[in-house]
């Protein structure tokens, strides 16, 4: 099951490392990453594949969100379908 992970917040050292470590711990494969820093604000968008994840999708999303809160970031993991529905016919 493919998903989009977005990380938005103030840029600090080690954001990508932390998110990737968490994802790999749970067997989530990163397919693509893009990131930009705009006026100190960090935006990272990842396409991931969670089909082999050891956690149910909703729990994984919650784990990432908590990790984000601890770092003062907004981290979301959403199923790709919602972006498909809203932006593609």
């Amino acid at each position, binding site marked *: 099951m493919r998903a*989009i992970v*977005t990380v*938005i917040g103030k840029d600090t050292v080690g954001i990508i490392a932390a998110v990737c470590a968490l994802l790999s711990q749970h067997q989530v494969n990163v*397919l*693509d990453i*893009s990131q*930009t820093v705009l006026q100190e604000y960090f*935006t990272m*968008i990842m*396409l991931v594949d969670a089909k082999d994840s050891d956690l149910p*999708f*909703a729990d994984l*999303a*919650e784990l990432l969100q908590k990790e984000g809160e601890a770092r003062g970031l*907004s981290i*979301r*993991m*959403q*199923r790709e*379908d*919602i*972006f*498909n*529905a*809203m*932006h*593609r016919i």
Partner: protein
Amino acid sequence: MPMFNNNEILDTIRMIDQQHLDVRTITMGISLLDCCDEDPKAACGKIYDKIARSAQDLVKTGEDIEREFGIPIVHKRVSVTPMALVAGASDTEDYVPFAQAMDAAAKAVGVNFIGGFSALVQKGMTPADRRLIVAIPQALAQTDLVCASVNVGTTKAGINMDAVALMGRMVKETARRTADRGGFGCAKLVIFCNAVEDNPFMAGAFHGVGEGDRVINVGVSGPGVVHSALQAVKGQSFDVVAETVKKTAFRITRMGQLVAQEASRRLGVPFGIVDLSLAPTPAVGDSVARILEEMGLETCGAHGTTAALALLNDAVKKGGVMASSSVGGLSGAFIPVSEDEGMIAAAQSGVLSLDKLEAMTCVCSVGLDMIAVPGDTPAETIAAIIADEAAVGMVNSKTTAVRLIPAPGKGVGETVEFGGLLGSAPVMPVHPQSSAPFIARGGRIPAPLQSLKN
């Protein structure tokens, strides 16, 4: 590789984060026609069991979808067969226990409202319909989650003026019995003309007799998203405004359709409809009134408001209808006063009047909704307001509704606080002139001609 560009992804997140985009409700419709029993206790037992069994996974499924898709699903709700049809088989005069069974089942499954303590009396009233209607005030006072609705007219049958007169009294009585909560019971009571059978929105949801055993209906929302999209086309022509609303409505509805299909699949319950409604909340940035003002009106209620609303309502439908495989329910822009920050402000400033709201309901979904009027408003005046609104629906072949709160002990200029999504309602003036002899006539207003339209 990624099929979306970053802007599209961030757009969606902005809509959810900053513009209050949400799925307003997943509502499971449940038929209770198989719960009839001569023994009222047995019937109530069957009603409780069927609701509790059918909807046991509804809330959890909604929450799972919410977390996986990252889209808030504000309400999970249940609607049932109009209770007068079920309770009519039981040998009892007192229908309050049926509402209590609904309430207990709703609490057991964790939904926040259950609709269907209802009667359809557009042409005539069975003894069961009458018993249900007179039980409404007590039922709404003694339960927490039950919503009641009564259909008093249709385009094909006309308006049942005996029922209209009775409902005027029931609205007053409901307010009286819930006076300690500002007449809150009235927020759970809707009087319809042309009620629809698949409406997922409360307080008027019920599961029509033409529906299957169970069904999933979804109501989308998103006034904030439409408002924000219109801010980007300031000063441009109405052609641009209409196109912008359509495109936005399309996206919102696609999201609703996705959630509806997912909920239907996981629950093993057929998908019914997506209701394409713009449902406001009292939160700043989630208002239908502010969309109308964005089109160039100083305050909602100013001249031009009806035209602005007509465009909005039509464009929402045009955009949404292509995005869903099945559209139904009320589908349109809602204008509940107490639930819309911009409407509250417009009413408080005196610009938005009851008369203007009535005109607005000619071109939008649904009707005079969540409006507080003085507590001493006579029952006949309330009935006359219901009759006017039903006439609008009957002649225009559309659904109209009335949800008025005669705020106990309050007058014009005061405010009733309901809290949460029901918001706060400024008490609005009604015309003091009497309509009592008009309401006392009773009988039926005949169905209107459907040709020679002028």
